[in-house]
């Protein structure tokens, strides 16, 4: 189980709550990871990163640094990323999360002692794509939020000796790195008050059908579209997510369930970690059938 942290004080309680590893970003001159470049989502500086690594290692947990941004033609971004990469290795970080293919290629020889995770921003929907990144010495693959259980099982069958990082509760249904709704419609992605993810697309739009070949009443069709438009089931207790966790916990490769939680409150992180920990423990100790598992979740979480 991996969780994103955005300040030092969170690491100890979350480690004690059962989190196995952490990931974090760091504020930099240029934006170098997939979250806003501020202290709501990132550690403030290298000395905080150093401290975060020390605390994590004290609890025998791993910590990854997210440098998962696709660097534009601005060469300063790549330079800063390379410099931060070297600093992080010097500070004994356990792994780096990548999303820029050239950055990945340029650091290939320097990643012997650390883990290399490929971010969702570099889409990997099939086993060939994973093989491609494996040749660049990547060993962990953060799978896209929309990857189905069957697709993940298929990848798991074809690829050996990798770590698959999977979102425990995928929220957004749009292809990673390919939503520019914010630029088009112009709303902020994160609520200014608590910094929680707030995709602009949840704002209701007025919709109409403009094609002519309708088979059903337009109200029915529009109601379907509005219900399925933007967000996936974000509740851990939805049947889709519970069944996802059940089947994905049985994969052959190592699976790390991930919470996309940088910028969220510690209380929410605790709730998510607690629920997932209970589920993982139940599955590993009892090896239940699917029916038994669903029955248990209903009983356990109602309580």
């Amino acid at each position, binding site marked *: 189980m991996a969780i994103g942290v955005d300040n030092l004080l969170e690491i100890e309680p979350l480690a004690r709550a059962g989190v196995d590893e952490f990931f974090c970003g760091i504020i930099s001159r240029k934006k170098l990871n997939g979250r806003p470049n501020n202290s709501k989502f990132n550690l403030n500086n290298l000395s905080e990163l150093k401290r975060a690594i020390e605390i994590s290692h004290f609890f025998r947990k791993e910590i990854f640094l997210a440098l998962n941004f696709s660097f534009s*033609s601005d060469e300063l971004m790549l330079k800063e990323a390379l410099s931060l990469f070297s600093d992080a290795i010097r500070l004994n970080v356990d792994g780096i999360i990548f999303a820029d293919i050239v950055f990945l*290629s340029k650091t290939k020889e320097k990643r012997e002692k650390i883990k290399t995770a490929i971010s969702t921003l570099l889409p990997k929907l*099939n086993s060939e*794509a994973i093989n491609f990144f494996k040749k660049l010495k990547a060993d962990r693959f953060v799978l896209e939020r929309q990857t189905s259980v069957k697709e993940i099982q298929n990848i798991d069958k074809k690829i050996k000796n990798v770590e698959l990082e999977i979102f425990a509760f995928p929220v957004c249904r749009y292809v990673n790195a*390919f939503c520019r709704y914010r630029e088009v419609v112009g709303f902020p992605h994160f609520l200014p008050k608590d910094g929680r993810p707030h995709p602009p697309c949840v704002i209701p739009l007025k*919709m109409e059908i403009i094609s002519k070949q309708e088979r059903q009443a337009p109200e029915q069709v529009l109601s379907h579209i509005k219900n399925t438009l933007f967000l996936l089931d974000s509740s851990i207790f939805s049947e889709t997510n519970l069944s996802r966790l059940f089947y994905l916990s049985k994969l052959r490769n190592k699976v790390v369930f991930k919470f996309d939680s940088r910028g969220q409150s510690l209380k929410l992180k605790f709730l998510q970690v607690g629920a997932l920990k209970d589920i993982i423990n139940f599955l590993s100790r009892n090896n239940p059938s699917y029916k038994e598992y669903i029955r248990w979740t209903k009983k356990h979480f109602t309580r």
Partner: protein
Amino acid sequence: MRSAKQTIYIKNIGDLEFWTKKFKRIYFGNEFCPNLIPTPSELKIAMDFATKRNLGFSLLTCQVNDVFLEKTIRNLSLLRKGDELIINDWGLLSVVSKRFKNLLPYCVFGKFITNNINLIRKDSRGFLKQYGFSGETLKRVELDINTAIERRLLDRSGAGKMFRNFKVSLYYPYSCFAATRLCPTAYCDSLIKPKNYRSEFWCNRECQRYTFLAKHPTQKTRLILKGNAWFLEASLTPFFKKNSDRLVFMPTIPV
């Protein structure tokens, strides 16, 4: 100054009727949904159409899982020397570099990869050369118009560094700004929906029957939802007309 070559984007063989003599190349296929990948026979029809009229031919491909990757590979074996392949998936890139070496000089990275701004950099050429890519692959960039506008702002050079360093194929008038693999349109008009239809990738191609228009109460922009992708309309500015190498005209919404 470049004079842009006119190209037409044909999403299915029904759209071939939109071709006119001014278009010297056909982009054929689907970049958005694996359920809409053309069959080999459809591909042959489009290729014959291009051959008879002495047109260039580019095959569009989309992001695929393992099942649809096989389907895409079947189509690749039909491509002839000189036909372009537009790649939007890293797995397909890997397959081409291993099994279709004859296509390596004619591969171009599609919008789903270049929109991510990863490969629009001079230093990306060295990386691609390691995989045997050469020729047009290292020179051409596929962009939709909104990315081009954003990109031009990013360049800060005014004249557009990207347009100097690369041959740009610019798609218009529809610009995709978001796409998902979990299609909101699937089963939108079915009263009985299959179990798991929200988390799997089945459908009855409802996207070919329905198009939706969305508007936010406080915004002027009209958003179009077709199948699994959102589009907005954007027109070419004189700068893009002058500096693009290819203008790829979409006669219909490309899903």
